[in-house]
């Protein structure tokens, strides 16, 4: 005898519950949390290094790094004097909220103003998983080409902020920044787009200002 029920629930309900718990603990601590998502090699860690150099005297920063292998990224940020914890996924293509929860349990970070969660380098899979962040940041390097928002719409539709990296390469490529801006606006009319170069420093101050503004905005809200 066959029977049917209609659960009508989110497939990622378990992850969503873990993310909600993280979000309330981040709210109680007044910590702004970013989930950085991009292809491998787009410059996530390099942007975090440039950000850390500018903000480390003003804000208490920390980082969770997601990679398939090596502690390399966490080491790069520790070298700049901020606490960093490396999650090694051993092949998995994304971080989930339970991994972040375990990482925070093990890392025992001091109180933080801003926590960066650098996801595994992948423009697709990390998109599905809420990590309790305040917002997702999509990074797109000039070398990857200007057609990516429409080709990978899920992440660019969900990221509140899109950061173009390696803008110092713009004069040497046919990358059309306005075309990218139009695609991002189409997918996410409220999205913010910043062009940055971690090498020359272009746009990095604007990025740091955005972080400071979002942190101040979060702290104005009742937890």
């Amino acid at each position, binding site marked *: 005898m066959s029977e*049917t029920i209609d*659960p009508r629930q989110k*497939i*990622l309900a378990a992850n969503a519950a873990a993310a909600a718990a993280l979000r309330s603990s981040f709210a109680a601590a007044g910590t702004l949390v970013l989930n950085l998502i991009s292809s491998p090699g787009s410059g996530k860690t390099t942007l975090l290094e440039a950000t850390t150099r500018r903000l480390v005297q003003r804000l208490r920063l920390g980082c969770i790094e997601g990679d398939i292998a090596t502690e390399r990224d966490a080491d790069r940020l520790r070298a700049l004097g901020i606490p960093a914890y490396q999650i090694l996924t051993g092949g998995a293509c994304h971080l989930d909220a339970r991994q972040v929860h375990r990482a925070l349990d093990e890392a025992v970070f001091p109180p933080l103003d801003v926590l960066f969660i650098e996801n595994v380098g992948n423009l697709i899979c990390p998109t599905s998983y809420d990590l309790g962040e305040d917002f997702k940041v999509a990074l797109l390097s000039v070398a990857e080409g200007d057609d990516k928002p429409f080709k990978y719409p899920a992440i660019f539709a969900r990221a509140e902020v899109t950061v173009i990296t390696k803008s110092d390469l713009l004069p040497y490529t046919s990358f059309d920044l306005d075309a990218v801006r139009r695609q991002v606006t189409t997918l996410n009319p409220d999205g913010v787009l910043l062009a940055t170069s971690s090498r020359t420093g272009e746009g990095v101050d604007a990025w740091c200002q955005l972080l400071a503004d979002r942190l101040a905005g979060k702290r104005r809200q009742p937890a």
Partner: protein
Amino acid sequence: MHELSIAQEILSSARAALQPYPGARLERVRVAVGELTAIEPELLRFAWEALLEGTPEAACDLDVEWRPAQQLCATCGVPKARPPRGWLPVCGDCGGPLRVDGGQELDLLQVSFVVPDGENGHERDD
């Protein structure tokens, strides 16, 4: 390729939904997958088959309802016809901006199952 992780979440959610029915065996699971979830239905079905292969529930089908995103005119609110998996830059009728709606669904909709005779925890009148 995170469809295997998603397939595992579907299976554990479906099994959890069957807890009130001891001995129940999954027969068919129906899910909704939105265009903006970064999940490919074909890969999800493949992952599902791989996950259940060799188990007593290997015959359980996974039905995937595809939910495309819509682009609506911000001025008149009417959905505009999109090319499949393509995006309109502006409203074809008034030239105004469009907003994206939907496509974020990732839901367990329906679970069909068989309860073998004698293992049903619920009393029947017949």
